[in-house]
């Protein structure tokens, strides 16, 4: 009988990540999810961009591609279109997916192909030694001397993704890796475009206290469990409720990080399915 263990999905390379980096746990969560879902490694595809998070494809023994900065999503799109039989994952950091790669996000959501995007968000540009990213918090506390655009407001990616009706939207913490593995499993199983934000810390360039506070403040969303918003409003969490998800997204990450499945929409036709239907009808 075939056995699926997380270790099988690891390549023989030693990661370049710093000791204590949240990417180890994130990588572990991915391999755990694949093992739990019993996906043969040759049927899994992992495409990553550039940055510390971008290295993840090199450490995975699947059909892996490390592509250009910000471009994991278009490459994953082409891959999935050509091979709908394969499980396609795309991964990148907050610079990769939200700065240079941001232009691809709305179109990926609209196309709604069955793939999973993992945003590894440590709120800084780590590989290039500490520049501001679109999600960096208090810039004054960054250890790097380099300050870029200190006055731009934060890019609230989850609010953005929810507004454009991403089919499956979730957030996890790298230091809650079991829970994270579960989220990744759900994202892969979701028949449509899934976007999962993984909050972790850069032990070398970012503020550990900041992350600890984030982690401590996190509220775990569970279907059927009561949610309390900072302004006192309460209701029962239901991931299929889009309006509730919008309300949750009004709260910033710094104020109250919501962990878990934020929104899981009904299955919608992918762009490809819809186009093929129209073409067939025109025949």
């Amino acid at each position, binding site marked *: 009988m075939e056995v699926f263990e997380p270790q099988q999905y690891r*390549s023989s*390379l030693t990661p370049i990540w710093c000791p204590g980096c949240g990417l180890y746990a994130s990588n572990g969560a991915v391999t755990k999810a694949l093992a739990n879902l019993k996906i*043969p*490694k*040759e*049927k899994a*595809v992992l*495409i990553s961009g*550039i940055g510390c998070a971008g290295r993840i*494809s*090199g450490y*995975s*023994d*699947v*059909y*892996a*591609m*490390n*592509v*250009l900065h910000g*471009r994991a999503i*278009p*490459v*994953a*799109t*082409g*891959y*999935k*279109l*050509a*091979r709908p*039989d*394969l499980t396609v994952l795309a991964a990148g950091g907050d610079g990769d997916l939200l700065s240079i790669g941001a*232009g*691809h996000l709305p*179109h990926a959501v609209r*196309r709604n192909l069955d793939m999973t995007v993992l945003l590894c968000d440590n709120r800084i540009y780590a590989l290039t030694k500490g520049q501001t990213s679109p999600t960096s918090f208090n810039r004054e506390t960054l250890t790097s001397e380099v300050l870029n655009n200190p006055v731009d407001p934060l890019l609230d990616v989850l609010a953005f993704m929810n507004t454009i009706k991403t089919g499956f939207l979730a957030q996890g913490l790298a230091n809650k890796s079991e829970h994270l593995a579960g989220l990744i499993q759900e994202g892969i199983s979701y028949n449509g475009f899934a976007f999962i934000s993984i909050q972790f810390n850069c032990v070398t360039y970012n503020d550990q206290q900041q992350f600890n506070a984030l982690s401590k403040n996190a509220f775990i969303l569970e279907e059927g469990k009561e949610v309390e918003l900072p302004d006192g409003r309460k209701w029962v969490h239901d991931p299929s409720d889009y309006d509730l998800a919008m309300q949750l997204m009004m709260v910033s990450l710094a104020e109250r990080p919501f962990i878990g499945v934020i929104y899981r929409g009904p299955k919608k036709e992918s*762009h*490809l399915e819809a*186009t*093929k239907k129209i*073409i*067939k009808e025109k*025949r």
Partner: protein
Amino acid sequence: MKKHLVVGIVGTGGDGVMLLGGLLMETVARLGYTASRPQTYESQIRGGGSAVKVNISAEPLLREKDELDVLICFNWREFLKVQNEFLVTENTVVICDEIAPEGQKVKIILFPFTQLAKELLGDARPKNLVIFGYLVKILGLDREVARKIVEETFAGKKYLDNNLKGFDLGRLRSESLLNYGLQLISSKAEPKIVLHGNEAVVRGALKAGCKSFFGYPITPASEIMESMIPRLLKTDGVGFQVEDELSALLTAIGASQAGNKTLVATSGPGFSLMVEGLGLAVQDEIPLVLADVQRAGPATGIPTKTEQGDLALAVYGAHGDAPRVVLAPYDIEGCYRLTIEAFNASEKYQVPVILLSDQLLGQTLFACDDFSKKEYYAENRLPPQESEKGKYRRYKITKDFISPVALPGTEGFTYQTTGLTHNEKGEPASDFQTHQLMHDKRWKKLLPLRERQDLVKIFGNPKAKTGIVTWGSSAQALVSAVLNLGLENKIKIAVPELLFPVPHTALVKFIKETKKLLFVEMNHSGQFYRIVRAWLDLPLPKKTFIYQRSGGKPFSQAELQRCIVEFAFPEVMK
């Protein structure tokens, strides 16, 4: 009786100029003539002028000519705007219904087509059909065939009847019809197909087994996307209009890596965006075909006019040394055949191949033989042996530097690839030896292409000591000029279809015994001339000249003939 004939049609948008040109084109094609119909139009969609030329030949080879034999003029004001490209002489027969402005020395036939349409059909709009009927008579074309084409064109439309009436009306009208000697000799050939270069690229790609297409609308390449995508979706292929050209190339990389033969098509501005992805495809040895339908540049340039200015970008575009293959068709058959060659080269050498077409080739309609009836060989990327299972190395160094490629989804062959310099296993590496080795691999695997003599076409007298080198759409005008001058025994012409790696063997053979060499190309800096100079091991003859100018108007016969005579026989000019 005429062997070659050029008909010009000018009017305002809404006069039916394009339609008339189309009907004429379909008719001569059906009758077996060779023909071409370049497009000339302003960027505005409505209200601007509309002008069309149809070049007809009873011989297989089209002969270019600057002056019109026949001009159909709906509107003299519009004609005056294009009179530099629609040249008339005292031999040109002009069919119009307005009095000509002063100074036009032509043969006028005042044919009140608008009035006739209004009075006898109750509608001015079929006036172009009235002219069509009339034209068919003057040119001596088979009227039953022409009428059938009118029927086919408007089948099922409510104005079919009126249009047929208009055609019959024009046919029967003899408005002081003297013998203008405009009748075409019979073609004696099989009916021809009509298509433009962009469509030929689509058909070539499908023939080669292309399964994916990604693109973004851009003049003058959008036709490729619009034709390709529905055809792929109707079969088991996949095609998308994506959010920008950057994404187009990267999506193509994903699809190709996953196993599909993939095409992207764009023009200069889109190509600039794709350069980033091109580097990745070269580094990771991912097959890909990129069709660039060149237009006048740089930046936004002139979207509707041709130029051959993207060669340097095609050869060198992307940072670092990223060698790739560049092919350039010079005629409609080449647009089809070289697309297949492009896929074959990209699969065999696991490299992106750039197909350099241009607006003139891409959007001119040609009546030509149906080349799809021939057999073409289709190459596929080299698969690994079963014995490599479990120890597969994607970038294994082999004798010819081409590594077998595993198909994703295959058990026991998982591998990684990266934009970083990588070793044979595909793992990131940063040492000099691996870096140099991989550079060697990517360059040396392409070297056999330098021997390809079949991809350099020779015209004229191969033994002549005076030679001309040209490429792309310039070739047809250039060859016509040599033929029109009657110099085909004194001059040899080389038209390389492979531009990079430079087809070394063939060009050395051509240039070795050449005493006088002329390069002709339509870009301001003489890009191919400089690339040949840089890459050819043989020094060019002392008497080497270059005729280089920007796009913005096609090469005229007057311009090229003067250039050729000045070059080949300067003593004549003195």
